[in-house]
């Protein structure tokens, strides 16, 4: 195009380049020069840590200055995303060797699978070489769930199991008493008794939202304790077995008859809202719930709850085990620096720091025995510390079902296909909770999915 001088005196065009220049300069300043990366004093790139946006991780970000003061020359940049986005992004990055992250937050679902694929740095040599790190202080079930061939490939930030929260005041008013080890059938009776439409209090809150990490987590523990399983020892689908059917029918009937309104759309977050605002008499879910429901700033029922172990039917226990942990991808250029951060945030001293800075009710629990034995933690957590500890210590990922199965995991099946399989099945279950299809129909359809996954493992074993 031929350059033509702009016509003078044009009121429309003149301010535009100036405004654009100012805005661009502002953008460059704010973003620290074209996203090239803030270079720290030591001249090294900052450590990039991808984490899930949960309250305990937000506290870790807030304490970042402590780490940087103790480790001059290492700057940390956090990438914080909600659970689903974080999982997708971290999986993509680690599996395709994208290399954006030096430290990633994963869980006991991924650790062994990824270690087997060679995607993670073996942390055992680092653990052994770090004086005072005290890996024996990790709760044995937690340590085991993050190990592959005897070596830890990720270290726990916090762990959780599942238990039942119930409103002691409502139980007292109704003249009910929670047994020490309740069964699911007892819980169903309590739910029927306490369900009060007029007062807007549901008998029980249970997840119904589709998602392998939503409705399938509590439901799988119910299936396990009813004697069912996803697959039998020969990888045949167990979804249409009488036990699986009975468990799903029980769960769906319970939540439809005495559960919260709109249960098919209720995930953990929704149940948290219901229970913490006094709109449910019981709630079976992750032990992590306590940090919100016992916090008077966000809950109207703080101090009113009792906690019972995960209800059972045929097994002795049924609580799941889920551990948020930190790992170093194999692509990380400087695993030594990455380990310095991982060590800092999972060390006993870090828990002390959180307790002193933010209060002991906010420490990440469920990773170290010493946390449960700390008197200051016991003081603030006396209502729930013991049931939580027992639930985590007794959650056995290798023997969660009544009959032997070829997979590990309690609230999930630790195979890569489970994210897809679990989500598809959960959509059917959620439709049954919504009343769009009946349970038998949902399980017939789900059985097709599970069979095709099972067949791939049967072929491998042949």
């Amino acid at each position, binding site marked *: *195009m*031929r350059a*033509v001088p702009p*016509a003078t005196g*044009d009121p*429309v*065009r003149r301010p535009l380049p100036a405004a654009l220049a100012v*805005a*661009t300069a*502002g*953008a*460059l*300043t*704010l*973003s*620290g020069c*074209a*996203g*090239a*990366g803030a270079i720290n004093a030591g001249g090294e790139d*900052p450590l*990039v840590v*991808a984490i*899930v*946006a*949960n*309250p305990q991780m*937000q506290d870790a970000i*807030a304490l970042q200055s402590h780490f940087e003061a103790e480790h001059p020359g290492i700057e940390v*940049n*956090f*990438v*914080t*995303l*909600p*659970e689903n*986005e974080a999982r997708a*992004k971290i999986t*993509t*990055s680690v599996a*395709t*060797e*994208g*290399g*954006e*992250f030096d430290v990633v937050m994963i869980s006991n679902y991924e650790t062994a699978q990824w270690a087997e694929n060679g995607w993670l740095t073996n942390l055992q040599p680092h653990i052994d070489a770090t004086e005072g790190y005290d890996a024996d202080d990790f709760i044995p079930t937690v340590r085991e769930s993050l190990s592959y061939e005897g070596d830890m490939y990720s270290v726990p930030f916090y762990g959780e199991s599942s238990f039942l929260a119930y409103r002691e005041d409502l139980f007292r008013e109704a003249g009910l008493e929670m047994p020490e080890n309740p069964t699911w059938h007892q819980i169903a009776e309590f739910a029927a008794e306490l369900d009060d439409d007029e007062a807007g209090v549901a008998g029980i809150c249970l997840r119904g939202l589709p998602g392998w990490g939503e409705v399938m987590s509590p439901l799988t523990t119910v299936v396990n304790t009813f004697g069912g399983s996803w697959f039998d020892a020969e990888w045949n689908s167990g979804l249409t077995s009488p036990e699986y059917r009975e468990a799903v029918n029980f769960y769906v009937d319970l939540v439809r008859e005495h559960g919260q309104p709109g249960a098919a759309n209720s*995930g*953990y*977050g929704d149940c*948290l809202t219901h229970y*913490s*605002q006094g*709109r449910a008499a019981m709630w079976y879910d*992750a032990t992590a719930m306590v*940090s*919100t429901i016992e916090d008077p*700033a*966000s*809950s*109207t029922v703080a101090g009113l709850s009792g906690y019972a172990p995960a209800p059972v039917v045929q097994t002795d226990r049924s609580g799941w085990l889920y551990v948020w942990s930190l790992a170093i991808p194999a692509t990380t250029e400087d695993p030594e620096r990455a380990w310095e951060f991982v060590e800092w945030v999972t060390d006993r001293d870090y828990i002390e720091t959180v307790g002193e800075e933010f209060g002991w009710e906010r420490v990440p629990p469920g990773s170290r025995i010493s946390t449960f034995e700390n008197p200051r933690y016991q003081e603030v957590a006396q209502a729930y510390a013991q049931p939580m500890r027992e639930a985590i210590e007794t959650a056995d990922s290798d023997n969660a079902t009544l009959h032997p199965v070829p997979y590990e995991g309690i609230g999930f099946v630790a195979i890569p296909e489970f994210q897809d399989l679990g989500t598809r099945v959960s959509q059917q279950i959620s439709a049954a909770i919504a009343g769009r299809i009946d349970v038998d129909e949902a399980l017939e359809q789900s059985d097709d999915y599970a069979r095709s996954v099972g067949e791939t493992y049967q072929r491998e074993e042949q």
Partner: protein
Amino acid sequence: MTATHLPSPKAARAGSGAPPAPAPRPRRRRGGAGGLALTLLTWAVTLVFVAPALWMVLTSFKQEADAYTDPPRIFFEPTLDRFREVFAADFAPYLGNSLMATLFSTTLVLVLGVPAAYALSVAPVRKTKDVLFFFISTKMLPVVAVIVPLYVIAGRIKMLDNIWTLVILYTAMNLPIAVWMLRSFFLEVPRGIVEAARMEGASLPRVLWSVMLPVMAPGIAATALICMIFSWNEFFFAVNLTASQAATVPVFMTGFITSEGLYWAQLSAAATMVSLPIVIVGWIAQRQLVRGLSMGAVK
């Protein structure tokens, strides 16, 4: 969500007040009751559109527990704590990245789109329709279908977590829409003006620069604003292709969503902050915008 801020009643008033428009007046005189009904309906529709944004702003001043009450609370003790938390989360780099991605991509879209649309409207050739459809066909493939190849390519050429990757993608994303919009604006300009300039001996680029652009300014402003809104709000590319250096404000916002706690008030405060720049730009450009949008609407 930010788009819902834009067609505010003020903008509409400013727009109708700008050019002397005798046309609506006789209509107003026609019937008091009908006019009143129309006004009320307009207000009702506006309220429906603006209500979610207003609720977001209201929620941002609440404590988390107040944000979750049933029935929802309109009266409560307001607090600025949520905004403090947003600023404590180091908002500035994300804002800078978003500004860069938005401004550079919009500039590139205009630099490439204006000549393209001009050529397609002033000097149509036999295959003009095909060219236009080719442009728009690039929008037909869902982005999720190309994200894996894009991610792998960006990774191989070391362009992951780089703001220029987003600038290029946003330019490609907005260019087809911009060409279609700009072309409809070019077609609005009476042919007589172009022909008169050509008779005076002006070349086609000269006609574009000195004749068409001044007339087209509102249309270009409207196109630019649409492109800016799309780039500013874009989440999918941003969340997948950036990490710590090039993340934009929509990615920043999602950091407040948690699966293990209450977060509506905090998220509302972040969303309010993130929406502000686009609302301000829309406010400043409202006169051009209404003229520009009505220009396109006639076509």
